[in-house]
């Protein structure tokens, strides 16, 4: 299972890449594998405010729907428009071309609640 060491992780199987006060988020390889083939990603509106722990997007696969939760509080600064026509990028490249959106954080201390790669690996191995 690929769990890049430079990212941070939530218990909802999302990853976060931190760049200053902007975070890029997506779902982990573990999450895409559990979901199966992704057929639709509901994108948040650019500029929309999001609160930590609140759902702001949905990922639909051939077998189920999964909510995406905001790992930090802030506003949506960018969305990955490529997912409109190629939602399968979440399966083929979850940490790269399959990123979902970027959030400008208002409280970077919220990042402390996220896991590092080692802790996330322990979580996935404990539940598999």
């Amino acid at each position, binding site marked *: 299972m690929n769990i890049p060491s430079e990212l941070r992780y939530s218990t909802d199987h999302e990853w976060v890449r931190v760049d200053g006060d902007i975070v890029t988020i997506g779902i982990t390889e573990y999450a895409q*594998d559990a979901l*199966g*083939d992704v*057929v*639709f990603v*509901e994108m948040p509106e650019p500029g929309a405010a999001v609160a930590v722990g609140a759902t702001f997007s949905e990922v*639909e696969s*051939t*077998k189920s*729907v999964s909510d995406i939760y905001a790992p930090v509080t802030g506003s949506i600064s960018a969305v990955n428009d490529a997912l409109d026509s190629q*939602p*399968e990028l979440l*399966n083929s490249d979850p940490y790269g071309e399959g990123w979902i959106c970027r959030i400008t954080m208002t409280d970077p201390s919220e990042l402390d609640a996220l896991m590092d790669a080692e802790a996330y690996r322990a979580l996935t191995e404990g539940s598999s």
Partner: protein
Amino acid sequence: MTLKRSPLDGQHRALGATMVEFGGWEMPIAYPTGTIEEHLACRNRAVMFDVSHLGTVRVESADAFDTLQATLTNDLGKVGPGRAQYTHLLDANDASVVDDIIVWWHADGVFDVMPNASNTTGVRSAIGGTDTTSSRAVIAVQGPDAKALVSTVFAAAGAVGRFRVESCDWHGAPCTVAGTGYTGEAGIEIAVPADAAASLWSALLDAGVPPAGLGARDTLRLEAALPLHGHELGAGITSLQAGLGWVIAWDKPSFVGRDAALAERERGVSRRLMGIATEGRRPARAGCAVSIDGVAVGEVTSGNFSPVLGHGIALAFLPPQTAIGADVVVDVRGKPLPGVVVETPFVRH
């Protein structure tokens, strides 16, 4: 409850399949190829499914024909030994479809009745017979090239025609092969003795038939608008409501549920299963409400993304007078998803 495992369980795990619970069985939902690729491989070429979770009830006696003919809705008299027939078992009181079944008629007085996994016990109590499910695996090979590819390793099986049933020998293992399936494609289903299943599976893999999971089987049957028990058929749902009146032989003197079915035919159905093409890729799901002109009039029974069409498709119960072409709105967890009522099957092959 311990989940049952297919004789091919080890093959699925070795191939890296994702296993899920289905009707009391642990079965592959997808292989690493993924549901959509498996779906398209079936439409374009051929795939094989392990459908060992389907029940097999062997009914074998001098009066087997009479028992089945007096119980099930379709007219076995229209077919004969060596043929398969799709039929329903109804509830005696309200004509609900207790199960939808394929009957494989082997020879005089010998039938394999194939219920859905979770209905095997109920069907056996209606028709008797012996549950032989655990003695065999069933491999469904489906797709436009299915029979040609099977023929390269198992010539007798590849030659079995549509809705025909034949006994074929796989290196000494007696198989039953039927020209049936659940994808809307040509193909066959092979009941192979459990201890010979792995060798047949491997031979088919080597012949270039990739495996597909139950996820693809579901999206394929939905494109073909084939009913799934528990969704389009089941308690409170009749054959007529599901648009399957042809499965009932109205002129047969008796079958279970005949009076209730006739009464419904007389008064007319209150709802009817119809197809909806939805906008964009977001799938409608079972249980979503369907509205016409702002009024909730029905409910989705199955919905998903159609890999062939590239948009969402759904089956739904709607008022019987609803016209093809009617605009509808599906409520997907509070979000309106526009759609239009269309002819089924959604994908015709």
